[in-house]
């Protein structure tokens, strides 16, 4: 049975100058515990889909359902992580990660302990009282991850969370995230423009097309790659095969859409 479904989701952006059709007839169904990567050129509406799934914006047309219940507004059932960490510089790391419970008024001693143990799990046990300025990019993104996980969301939405990091940090964080998600059996949607990241981390890859945003192709990641940790998956022979296929798919889009821009 489907866990998260989008039914014929269409979305427009309005401005004084024009109407933009950001998404057109997006229908997907995601199973529980599945890891989905949304891959596509910039401006194809990847982030819009994520915002719609998170309930931050409601689609112009169509429905979003989590476990058969329609999503209308954000809730603690959905964890959303942005491209940059957006830790609040005026709050300590511990205050930052307890922000969700504070907003929902579920802040308790147990929550605090849970926060501390999660910090430990991502290797940040010593920085709880520090302020975000004192942390490196990778540490900050890990703290942001804890802030997202603490509410125990049923589904995690990642909007290019690794793209602002240096390559090595990014690979390490991929390992960590992938491990954590497997342990807690979380359903995840990852938006990325990095083909390698998509293949190494996900179970299925949705390739998107722009103007308007549609899902043009779905790739299944072979089981051998799924079972490996991201770092090892990148070295697997089947990785390169899939990489080339996805590359080709994206490459044809680029030429078509740039032609479209010319007309």
């Amino acid at each position: 049975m489907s866990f998260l479904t989008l039914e014929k989701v269409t979305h427009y952006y309005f401005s004084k100058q024009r109407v933009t059709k950001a998404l057109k007839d997006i229908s997907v169904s995601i199973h529980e515990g599945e890891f989905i990567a949304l891959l596509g050129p910039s401006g194809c509406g990847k982030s819009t889909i994520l915002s719609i799934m998170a309930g931050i914006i409601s689609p112009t047309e169509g429905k979003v359902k989590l476990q058969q219940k329609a999503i209308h507004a954000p809730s603690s059932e959905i964890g959303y992580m942005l491209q940059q960490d957006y830790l609040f510089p005026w709050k300590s790391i511990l205050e930052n990660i307890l922000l969700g419970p504070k907003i929902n008024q579920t802040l308790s001693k147990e929550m605090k302990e849970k926060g501390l143990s999660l910090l430990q799990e991502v290797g940040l046990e010593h920085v709880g009282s520090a302020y975000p300025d004192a942390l490196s990019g990778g540490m900050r993104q890990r703290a942001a991850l804890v802030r997202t996980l603490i509410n125990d969301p049923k589904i995690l939405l990642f909007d290019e969370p690794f793209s602002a990091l240096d390559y090595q940090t990014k690979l390490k964080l991929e390992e960590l995230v992938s491990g954590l998600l497997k342990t807690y059996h979380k359903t995840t949607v990852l938006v990325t423009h990095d083909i390698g990241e998509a293949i190494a981390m996900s179970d299925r890859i949705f390739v998107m097309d722009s103007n308007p945003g549609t899902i043009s192709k779905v790739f299944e990641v072979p089981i051998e790659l799924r079972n490996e940790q991201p770092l090892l998956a990148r070295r697997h022979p089947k990785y390169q095969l899939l990489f080339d296929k996805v590359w080709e798919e994206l490459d044809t889009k680029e030429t078509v859409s740039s032609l479209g821009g010319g007309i």
Partner: protein
Amino acid sequence: MKQTKDDDRLFQHYLTSVRKEKKRVIIWQVLILISFILIWEVASRLYWVDPLLFSSPTTIYQVIAEKLQDGSLLKHMQITLLETVAGFLIGTIAGIFLAVSLWFSKRLSNILDPYLVILNAMPKVALGPIIIVALGPGYVSIIAMGAIISVIITTLVVYAAFNEVDPNYAKVLKSFGATKRQVFQHAVFPATMPTMISTLKVNVGLSWVGVIVGEFLVSKQGLGYLIIYGFQVFDFSLVMMSLVLIALFAAVMYKLVERIENWLIK
């Protein structure tokens, strides 16, 4: 071991050089002040400038001593200080409150926009006579002058700062299901703290302008009144004395706000 000793010596060397530089700056500052006072005194005694118009430091000192003794100066100072502090607080708080209301209601902000532009462009001291007629020729009017001069500019600056807060902070909070109030409390307000503090600094100067002009117009008591009175009876020692005192108080108030700033933004 030797290495650390060496490091320590270098560090001490650096500290002494910093201290020396600071000393040098202070010496220069004191020198400028003393020579200014000396030149003023000499110029006045030797009639390079008309002592009747420009007074002299010693005369000003005498006037201060005399006025302090009969108790009249203390009263004038108290009144002006009170009015300025009240005007400053009311203007700043009302301005921030207005900015908050505008942030909470986009529609209110759109509706009020042209009025705020006009009120901001308008020279507020020109409203003085009307305020005095409406509120009576007393300290209430003067406080109103001190407040009105800073309230609109505070509103505009703080509201602009509210709007410049990175919307992604709000997005993070909204993803947790935060209400607009919570977004304001956790993201917008703390993020704009530095801007609000810097408007405080600007408002210190503005409320002095408002209050002194108010005292010019009401002409009953206060340092502004002493300036106008000294001008009318051609006693420029009195005018100069008031100016010196105002400069002093304004500087102290500014420094106090700076202290608050350091305390709030650690």
